[in-house]
Structures are given as structure tokens and as C-alpha cells.
């Protein structure tokens, strides 16, 4: 109860965070229930109504095929959010395994450490481009590529936390008592990893949305037929002069999502990191 009140107070004081949560909630609801909110099919073409500016019929205007931009933005949100979310899951799953191995076993650490360092030496987008070039452009492959790209970040955080957790008195005690390693891992380590993972996952979510858009924009991402936000900006750039709305609204959607996620991630870090709490 008191915890809840503290949380409520925290949110109230932190107006930016409130804004972020509200924005993200709106985007998520619109995306998840897209068919309910969109008056048009996202793929339905009406060539005669192409390039119409925003109006009460077409809230965000129409694109070069006369498709409703609003419908496409919110349907695109499903794909962008799904891609981001799946990337987080994939990166975290892989990162946790690598991180715990590195944190627990010194020999594994030497190998994993170097591989992680090597992977992190590539700029995110560059490694993603190369991996998608290898795997072929599709939604699944973009998720896999981005998951691989962000895996080392998670592995680093998990390794650092595991090293700390390993030395905690109760873990040492459990080990001394002969508790099997997998029990220690599931009971103590994973539970203590939750906080750093949530923080890291929020940021990766944000970065993955940006990176997916970047890949689509460069023409090496999800099939350009799919209405993702990056694809819409890519297609809309040619009409930047006479139909600004085609590339403006998906861009704004990306900014809102990524902005909200980063604010929330920052707040989570502040709330979950005891070292910072001290200085509040």
C-alpha cells in the first residue's frame, strides 16, 4: 500500500514520466486495436483519392495510392511495436544465457568477453545491415538481426550483475551448503537480474524501433510492401513537398514511442538503482 502511494507520488512529481506513460499507452492502444480505430483498410487503394491532405475523412491524409495514412500509421505501429518487443525478448534471452555463463565461469568469460567486445565494436545499424543482407529481408530476420545486435549489451549488464550477485552473502552461503548451481541461478540470480533487465529491455525496445525504421528506410529491412513506419517514411520522402503528411506522421509516431520508452527507462533506472536513490 505504501509502496503504491510512493509510486503514485513519484509519477505525480515527475510530469515528464506521466506524459511518457500516457503517450505510450495511447500509441499501444491504437496499435493493438488498430482495426477498431481505422475507418479504412491499411492496404485498400483508391487511386482517385491519392495524395489528399489531412481532413475529417482521412485524419492523416492519403498516400500515393490513395490509402489512408492514419490506418497505415496505426497498423504500422503493430508491426513496429511487435518487432521492438520481439527483439527485446530475443536479445534478453540470449544475453542472459551469455551473461550468466560469463559471470559464473571464468573460462567462459574469457571467450564470451572477447566475442561481446568484438560485436560491440560494430555500430548497431551497420551490423544489422550486414546481418539482414545475410539472412534476407523479412520481419523475422530483422528481429533476429537486431536481437543479435543488442544481445551483447544485455550480456554485459547481466555479467556485471552476476559478478555482484555471486559474491552476495546468501549466494555464497547457498553454494557452501552445496545447493546445485541451477537452483542458485533460478532462485537467486535470475530474481536479482530482473531490475537491470527491465531497464535495459526498455532502452533496447526504444533502440530497436529506431533501428528497424532505419533499416526499412535504407531499403534493407522488412519487405517494403509492409506498412512499417520506416517504410512509410521511405516511400513518402519523394512526396515531401506536395504531400508532407505521408512522411510526417510515421516520423512523429516513432518519436513519440521512442521518447516515451526512453523516459520510462530512465525513470525505472532511477527507481531501481539504489546507488542513485541515495542522492535523491
Amino acid at each position, binding site marked *: 500500500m505504501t509502496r503504491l502511494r510512493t509510486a503514485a507520488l513519484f509519477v505525480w512529481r515527475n510530469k515528464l514520466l506521466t506524459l511518457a506513460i500516457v503517450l505510450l499507452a495511447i500509441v499501444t492502444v491504437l496499435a493493438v486495436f488498430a482495426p477498431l480505430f481505422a475507418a479504412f483498410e491499411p*492496404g485498400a487503394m483508391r*487511386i482517385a483519392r491519392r495524395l489528399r491532405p489531412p481532413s475529417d475523412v482521412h485524419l492523416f491524409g492519403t498516400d*500515393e495510392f490513395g490509402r489512408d495514412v492514419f490506418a497505415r500509421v496505426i497498423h504500422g505501429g503493430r508491426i513496429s511495436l511487435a518487432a521492438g518487443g520481439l527483439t527485446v525478448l530475443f536479445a534478453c534471452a540470449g544475453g542472459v544465457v551469455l551473461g550468466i555463463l560469463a559471470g559464473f565461469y571464468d573460462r567462459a568469460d574469457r571467450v564470451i568477453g572477447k566475442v561481446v567486445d568484438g560485436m560491440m565494436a560494430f555500430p548497431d545499424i551497420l551490423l544489422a545491415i550486414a546481418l539482414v543482407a545475410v539472412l534476407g529481408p523479412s520481419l523475422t530476420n530483422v528481429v533476429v538481426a537486431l536481437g543479435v545486435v543488442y544481445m551483447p549489451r544485455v550480456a554485459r549488464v547481466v555479467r556485471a550483475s552476476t559478478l555482484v550477485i555471486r559474491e552476495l552473502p546468501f549466494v555464497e552461503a547457498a553454494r557452501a551448503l552445496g545447493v546445485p548451481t541451477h537452483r542458485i541461478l533460478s532462485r537467486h540470480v535470475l530474481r536479482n537480474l530482473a531490475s537491470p533487465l527491465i531497464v535495459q529491455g526498455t532502452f533496447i525496445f526504444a533502440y530497436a524501433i529506431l533501428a528497424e525504421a532505419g533499416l526499412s528506410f535504407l531499403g534493407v529491412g522488412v*519487405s517494403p510492401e509492409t506498412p512499417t513506419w520506416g517504410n512509410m517514411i521511405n516511400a513518402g520522402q*519523394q*512526396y515531401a513537398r506536395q504531400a508532407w503528411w505521408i512522411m510526417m506522421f510515421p516520423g512523429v509516431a516513432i518519436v513519440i514511442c521512442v521518447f516515451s520508452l526512453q523516459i520510462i527507462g530512465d525513470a525505472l533506472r532511477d527507481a531501481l538503482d539504489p546507488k542513485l536513490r541515495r542522492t535523491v
Partner: protein
Amino acid sequence: MRKILTASLAGLLAAGAATAALAQEPRRGGVINVATIGEPPTLDPSVSTTDVVGMISLHYFETLYTFGTDWKIVPLLAAGDAQISDGGKVYTIPLRTGVKFHDGSTMTSADVVASLKRWMDVAVRGKQAAAFITDVAAPDPNTVRITLKEPYAPLLSLLSLPTSAAIVVPASKAQAQLAEIVGTGPYRFRERQPDRYVLLTRFDDYVARDDAAQVYGGKRTAWLDEIRFVPVPNANTRVEGALAGQYAYADSLPVEAFPSLRGQARTEPVVLAPFGWPVMTINTRQGTLANQGVRQAIQTALKPSDMLEAAFGDKAFFKPEGALYAEGFIWHSKNGVEVYDQGNAAKAREMARAAGYNGQPIRILTTQQFEFHFRMAQVAVEYLRQAGFNIDLQVSDWATLTQRRTDPALWEAFFTHSPFLPEPALNGYLNDQSPGWWSTPERNRLVAAFNQESDTAKRVAVFADLQKVVFEQVPIIKIGNFNALAAKSPQLQGLTPAAWPFFWNTWLKP
């Protein structure tokens, strides 16, 4: 009323003539930047069919013949028309004398023979011609004689084209892979910085023809000191750069940019009409669409006028026309066009079922590198799905597409486009070796007759029959005609809009 109108019109015309006279004083000097669609893969136009290579190399390499007004074949390095004898099997070509190469040597028939042999060896179209050629010889220093196995009407067109081109280089430098760029053109190659520019400078010893200029033919004068071809792959950036006055000429712009190019101080639109025709080529050899009935159903389902509108927007830039050659070309005919532009989903569904189609996937290849291909493909997919077809649209880069389409197991249809080629025989659908592999008894009989006939009027009649067979057997679906858009600086004078833009005979107004 009418008188007043006429009078004011006359006044306008007079004023126009006066300004035109002022502007038409060519001036030597100046440097221009030309924005191209991308880095040329090579500087040698014989090994490439890429338009950007043709456009750049036109300035330093020349061919025996070239195209004048209305795509008429006119001599360039040849002194005059070829004398055709022995029932169309021997071509005797007189050469110009005193033509200088960039290395200072003078062109002789030995150079031309070596160059033509090289062309037959390395160029796609050269290999195509080589199948008919038995001998290339030089009876004297200023004459070349080509002997054929059987009459082959497209020969002079092949010798005139700037892509897969029969360029003339010194015999000593006619290796398969050119080590040096030495031609006879009004400009010479100076420097290439990949992805930055190709730099050409005026060739001061250029020997020009005496006859009046007509498109690529006639007298060529290099007024400009220097031409730089700058690759700008992003179409949007080409438009913006033109608007900002960065380029004297910006090639191949998206037609959506037309309104924004009008009434600008630093640039003006250049429209080339009609430029060419987008087309859906169908795999007739293998897979679901080897079935002619299904091909006919697809033709019935599509609505090319909608595809054109989505691709080109402004109605000034496209014309829904089924005929394989646009009105104005001698090859134009209305034979068989009734089946064009139906967009009839119900009928198509019926036809497909009758032909035995039940939901087999149809793989359509397209690329985003040509935005209008991709937009047409998206509209096509929408119409085909409505008619019950199961479409798998595969988007890749153009290089991958051109690789993939050579394997009949990998696709059912792909999008491409072509300029209206002056010689119908050069079109891919009339070559059974090119992807699509259309080869039926009806087609083969007509194509053979077409290639061997040298009388133009008779060839026109044969082509009209061929067009009818195209609509019946559907090896391709022509989407329509489109115009090309480019932009030029108001300072650039004397430009003739052309399929492969060229800059001799142009100059900069001070």
C-alpha cells in the same frame, strides 16, 4: 476578335523570336555538373546495357551510325548510308577520312574492323548480331564490308545504339577489357572518382561532321570546357539539388517533382515524351504462367490505367495505351488492343478457373530502385488478389532481380521498362533467349519474317500481326506509355531532350 488574336499572337511570336536570337549565340567555355542516377558500373558501353553508361560514354566514344530526328538512322563515323547488296546480305560502309582519336592517331578501316570484332565478342547485342555475321573486312582504308549469312534488318540499329554499343577505338587498343579510354568523341575522358564524379574535357582536335545537327547526328560542337557526371542515387536528392541550382542537368527525376520544378529561378523541367513503356514480363517457359489461359486471365484482371496513375501521378506524364509503339512511331498499330485495361476481376477469376488455376503462388519480382516499378507492382498485386490470385511479391535490388530472372524456376513475372526502341527487333520479347523465353510457332514464324524483310512498309504490316499475337499469347503485359522528367538550369542552352541526354552543342548563357 479573331484578327486581334492573330495580331497579338504575331507580336508574341516576334518577341519570342527576338529573345531566342539573343539566347542562341553559342558561347565557348564553362563547366557543367550533371546529376546521374548512380555510379556507372563501367566506362565501356560495349560491355554494358546500362543507360547511365551509354549517356556518359556517348561523349567520348562514337559509333558508325547513330539516331537523328524521329529515330532515323544517320551516319556518324560512316561517311554516308551503307550500300546494301546481295539481297540484304552485304553491307558496304564508307568511312569518314581524317577522324582523330584522342591519342592523336587517325581512324582507318583497320580500327573499325578490330572494333567491330571486339563488339561481336564482348557486347550482348554484338553477340546477337554475330550469329548472322560471316565476315567483317576492310577492302580499302576508308571502307568496311560486313557480310551476313542471311538478311538481318536490325543490323544498322544495333550499330547505332549507345548501349551495348559498337564503339570505334584504335585497333591497338581494342582488347576485350579496355585498358584506356580512347575514342573519337567531342569530349575526352579525364578522371573518374567512383561515387564522386566522372570528368570529361573538350577534345580540341575533334573533327566534326559538316551536315546540320539532328539529335545525335550531324555536326557536333563542344562548347563547354568540362562536363562532370555526378552520381546522385537518391532521386529525392537529385530533385532538391536541381532546385538549389547545384546541377546544370539532373537526369531521371520522379514525375511527382514536376509541379515543384515549374516557375523556379534556378531550374526548369525538361520533359521527354513519349519516353518509354513499363511492362510486366511473364515467364512463358516454366511454372504456373506457362499456361496461356492463366496469362490471359491476368491480363484481364489488371487495370494498367490505375497502375500508371499510382506510378506517375500527373496525367501529363503517362498515357494508358496498349499498342506496343506509341502513336507517332511508324510501328504503331491498334491490332489486338481491345483486351487492354479491363480490370475485370470477376471475368478474370472465371478465366483463371477455366484454365485450371487454383491458388498456386505467383511470384512477381520487382525493385524499389525504380520507384515507379514498385508502385505499379503494388497496384497490380491489389487487382490480382481481388481476382483471386495468390501473389507473392518479391522485392529486391535491381541487380539481384536481373540475376534471378535468368532462372525460369524462380519467378512467374517481373516488372521492367524500356524506351521505345527504334528497331522493334531489339525488344526483349522478340528475343527468345531473354527472360520470358517466349517461343511459339506463331511467334517464331512472324519474327523470322520480320528480321529478314528489308522493306519497311512490309515490316510494319508484319509487326502489326506480331502485336496481335502478343495480346493473344500474353508473353508481356505492356502497362502504357510514360514521359521522362529531367531538370536543367535556365543557363544551359541548346539542349535537345533525348533518351540518352548529351551535352555537345549545348552552352552556358552568361
